[in-house]
């Protein structure tokens, strides 16, 4: 087994605002090993981004970590010194954000936004950082002379490339990509994914791919973790989980995908709506939407059970349903 890079244990995060309290994460356990690429899937609001931001100790205003531990290479992130924390962010772990239109600072050139990482972590001076940033732009398919252009002079897809260039600038050990293609149109999505695939190979970086697109997971990842209402409800290799999904929610997700080959059935939608983080149901959080719900499910939180060597599911019935 490879070394554990990022290990999250029983993470619980609550957001408190004047109007409401929302339980975003309710005991997340997640491990990413060196060289591994893990897909984190789930609907909007399942807690994917919160998990990522918590790993960098960057929870937004109002977010409180109630419980749990986060280790990066065996070091407790919450107890890291300021220096260790700054070194981890951007250098060891870097993050690519969801919306390229809002995640670049409009009043600084793209060169500055790539260069700042290099100056901070690699100790380069302005000139060296510019040269390196130019090289990185070329790597992601943007002409180097555009270094001094501002974000508004680029299209969405190009801006995401800039974000990726900044993300790989310091050759991080872990790259967190938070729905990097959601805001882009389909052809650009394909280009960005192709680029990420290539870079991941070249740099042998571990990847945490956050998405609600199952296609992206099967393209880029070996492992997948399915998230629902702030918990990981199924985890395993992509091949295992996708071919033999055990959790009713995962089954629903896969059933909601149209098939291109073979007989076409009606798409099956998961009944009900996503659990509201402000009023989470008791017991298994999926039970109100589950067709196999039992009395036990309504009262108790199921434990993660192993169903195969590399396949775990958080369901009382271990994913064994009749028919």
């Amino acid at each position, binding site marked *: 087994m490879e070394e554990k890079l990022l290990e999250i244990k029983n993470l619980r995060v609550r957001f408190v605002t004047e109007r409401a309290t929302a339980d975003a994460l309710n005991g997340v356990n997640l491990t990413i090993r060196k060289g591994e690429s893990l897909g984190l899937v789930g609907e909007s609001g399942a807690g994917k981004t919160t998990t990522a931001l918590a790993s960098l100790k960057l929870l937004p205003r109002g977010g409180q970590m109630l419980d749990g531990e986060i280790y990066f290479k065996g070091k407790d992130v919450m107890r890291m010194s300021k220096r260790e924390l*700054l070194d981890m962010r951007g250098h060891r772990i870097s993050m690519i954000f969801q919306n390229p239109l809002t995640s670049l600072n409009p009043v600084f050139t793209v060169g500055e936004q790539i260069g700042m990482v290099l100056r901070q972590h690699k100790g380069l001076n302005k000139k060296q950082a510019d040269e390196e940033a130019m090289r990185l732009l070329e790597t992601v398919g943007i002409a180097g002379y555009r270094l001094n252009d501002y974000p508004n002079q680029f299209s969405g897809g190009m801006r995401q490339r800039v974000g990726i260039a900044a993300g790989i600038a310091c050759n991080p050990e872990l790259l967190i990509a938070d729905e990097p293609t959601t805001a882009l149109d389909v052809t650009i999505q394909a280009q960005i994914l192709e680029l990420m695939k290539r870079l991941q190979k070249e740099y042998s970086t571990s990847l945490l791919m956050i998405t609600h697109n199952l296609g992206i997971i099967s393209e880029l990842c070996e492992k997948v973790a399915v998230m629902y209402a702030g918990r990981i409800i199924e985890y395993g290799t992509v091949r295992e989980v996708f071919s033999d999904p055990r959790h009713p929610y995962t089954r629903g997700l896969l059933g909601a995908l149209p098939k291109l080959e073979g007989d076409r059935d009606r798409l099956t939608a998961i009944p009900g709506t996503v659990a509201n983080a402000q009023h989470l149901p008791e017991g298994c959080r999926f039970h109100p939407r589950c067709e196999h719900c039992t009395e036990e499910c309504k009262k108790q939180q199921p434990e993660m059970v192993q169903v195969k060597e590399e396949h775990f599911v958080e369901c009382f019935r271990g994913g064994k349903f009749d028919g």
Partner: protein
Amino acid sequence: MYFRYILRRLGQTVIVLFFISILAFALIRIAPGNPARMMLPDTATEEQVHAKEMEMGLDKPLYIQYIKYIGGVLRGDLGTSASYQTSVGSIIADRFPATLLLTAATILVSLLISIPIGIIAGIRQGSMVDFLAMLFALIGQSMSTVWLAVMMIYIFSVKLNLLPALGMGGIKYLILPAITLGYPLAAQVTRMGRSGMIDVLREDYITATLAKGIPESRVYTKYAFKNALIPIVTVVGLQVGYFLGGAVVVETIFSWSGVGQLANQAVGNRDYALVQSLLLVIAAGFALVNLIVDLINAKIDPRITLE
């Protein structure tokens, strides 16, 4: 792009100044009172007044007077003041440095205080520092300048005998008028700095910058503040424009012989040449400052030149 932007803004400024010259010319003539009569003793006869009017060119039709005036302005001649009996240009040149000095001191004092307070209050929203900063701003924005001026004189000159109340001289004379004039501006800039920072800190790109491992202090002062700066530059620019036009109340209370005081007297004397040229010069100053503000903002945020 930037150069074309400058040209366009300069063109607009010239047009604005042309209309202001007409307005300034017309406004003082609409006001009741006859400058020829003001020049003469009370005992002057109608004939004497009429002769004086002819001498001053006031008998000619208005458009002729205007053309004569604007022709002079274009040649660099702002006319002759009836009350001072010397060229308007030299009077303004004489008074302008005092106003400039007061303006510079005011801006310096208020920005040195308000920008750090605004940034800190924005970062620590809801904290004690924030509360005190907002109190400081609330008082500054609600207090009348006249009352503040009088209180400053009462406390620092009369009671504590620390600073001179009136007149001009060394830096000591500058302190009270600069604080009086600067406090409301400082209050406004504090507020804008705070709300600007609060807005910017919510942006994705700030989280993204923090995620790059850039120290918080630098993220706030460099990467966030530059975004919060644009409305501040605009407001400060407008204020500089007003101050250059002479802060009439403050200059009068503190006997600061600047442009504001001059304008006040010129209107009282119905000194047509002085008033119309003074207004034009003040407007030109205002337009120039606005132009500079726009150019600074376009430098800060390159998206502005595209509009």
